[in-house]
């Protein structure tokens, strides 16, 4: 097995029953595994709701560690749509050329810097930095803020040994409180200032609502982007021909990006709460119990994808669900995709080859399944062109 491979642990269960039960703090979850069912359940928001006790749709459940509602993530229609249209234009800013120029400058600098070093541990020295710096563009705050984001490390939301330890998140909560207070006194052109002045259903947003949006922007785009970037580097180190091909065929970059994101599925699954007795794949689901939509399994469904376990860089039709499906599809996808576009462009321009030295996989455990989602660490050497 190549070291950049991500095997599909769900295949057997997906074929045989289409679901699997996992326990989670005595609030069990039925994982939904087939592409068709995942999309159907994501679409059926009135049966499978995102709006329950804050933290309950996350697996493992965060009910015990937070009471704040993340917005628009933990809200159902019709309120969801009103929140969403409030923030949507802001999250499309990565399509502007000024944003892209700044992102390109950031990533070029980072690649130049690491190319001078003998080797790097890429999770911390590359992906965390890239993610933190790019986030200053999404928030529209000074570049220097990224030093604070970097200093929180890769585990600001959950400590590595105990996913339910909320202690680490305190630094983030204090930071957000301070920033809201600052923006109230002296409004700027950042996301918090925009939210402070925004109208929602004929009123201003409350501070808790603003916090709910900001925390989500930090949390939703942290591990996912770090894994997406690290996994891409690992793939290119393992497949030098792919880097050459991407250099020679810039026209396939878009397809390659969607394919890498399908293959890696940086977010494994996300939960929902049943609002009535129902069933999935013939399995009864009782009212008030939980299911999860397993994007990672759906993305390897052999009924939809030919050669699902291969990275086909120019895969033409690719209805992956890595960014979710339906109402709650990823708000940060435009930013994430732009990072990938620019990363590939900079790498093919500046890097001849990436050398793999060693790695420690990050494997998640979900009931009967062990799934590699990324790396705890990976040592790489960049050879400049």
């Amino acid at each position, binding site marked *: 097995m190549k070291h950049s491979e991500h095997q599909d642990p769900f295949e057997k269960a997906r074929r045989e029953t289409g679901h699997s039960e996992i326990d989670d703090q005595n609030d069990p979850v039925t994982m939904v595994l087939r592409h068709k069912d995942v999309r159907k359940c994501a679409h059926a928001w009135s049966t499978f709701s995102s709006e329950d006790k804050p933290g309950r749709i996350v697996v493992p459940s965060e009910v015990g560690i937070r009471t704040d509602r993340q917005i628009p993530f933990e809200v159902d229609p019709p309120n969801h749509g009103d929140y969403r249209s409030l923030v949507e234009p802001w999250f499309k800013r990565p399509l502007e050329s000024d944003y892209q120029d700044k992102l390109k400058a950031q990533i070029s600098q980072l690649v130049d810097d690491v190319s001078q070093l003998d080797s790097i541990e890429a999770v911390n020295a590359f992906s965390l930095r890239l993610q933190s710096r790019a986030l200053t563009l999404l928030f529209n705050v000074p570049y220097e803020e990224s030093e604070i984001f970097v200093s929180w490390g890769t585990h600001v939301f959950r400590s590595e040994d105990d996913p339910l330890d909320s202690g680490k998140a305190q630094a983030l909560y204090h930071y957000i409180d301070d920033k809201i207070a600052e923006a109230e006194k002296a409004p700027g052109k950042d996301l918090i200032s925009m939210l402070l002045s925004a109208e929602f259903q004929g009123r201003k947003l409350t501070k808790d609502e603003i916090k709910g949006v900001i925390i989500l922007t930090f949390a939703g785009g942290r591990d996912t982007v770090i894994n997406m970037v690290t996994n891409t580097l690992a793939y290119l180190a393992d497949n030098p021909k792919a880097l050459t091909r991407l250099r020679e065929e810039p026209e396939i970059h*878009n397809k390659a*990006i969607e394919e890498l994101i399908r293959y890696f599925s940086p977010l494994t699954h996300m939960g929902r709460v049943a609002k009535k007795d129902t069933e999935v794949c013939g399995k009864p689901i009782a009212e008030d119990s939980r299911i999860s939509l397993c994007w990672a399994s759906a993305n390897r469904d052999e009924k939809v994808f030919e050669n699902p376990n291969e990275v086909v860089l120019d895969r033409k*039709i690719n209805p992956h669900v890595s*960014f979710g499906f339906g109402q709650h599809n990823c708000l940060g996808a435009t930013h994430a*995709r732009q990072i990938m576009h620019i990363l590939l462009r900079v790498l093919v321009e500046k890097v001849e080859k990436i050398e793999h030295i060693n790695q420690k996989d990050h494997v998640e455990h979900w009931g009967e399944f062990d799934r590699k989602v990324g790396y705890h660490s990976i040592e790489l050497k960049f050879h400049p062109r």
Partner: protein
Amino acid sequence: MAKITFITSDNESVTLEGQSGSVMELAVSNGVKGIDGDCGGVCSCATCHVHVAENDVAKAGEASEIEADMLELEDNVTEASRLCCQMEISDALDGITLTVAR
């Protein structure tokens, strides 16, 4: 080459001329409102949903199974729905009218 007319949700109509690529790319590069093309045309986002005018359905052709499955769960879907990233520009499309679905 094909001339393609888009009608947007505010009832504006714009006719564009395309040489190659997909209808979605033509719409996005000309800023047609309501066609975002988020996934770049790989049939994963449905932000390129259009309704083909009644008389043009034959010209536009049929959706593939994967495209049809995607459309099935879209709001505002009709018999004439297509994801226009899956429509390649060619002479065959000349003169068609597409109403943007959102």
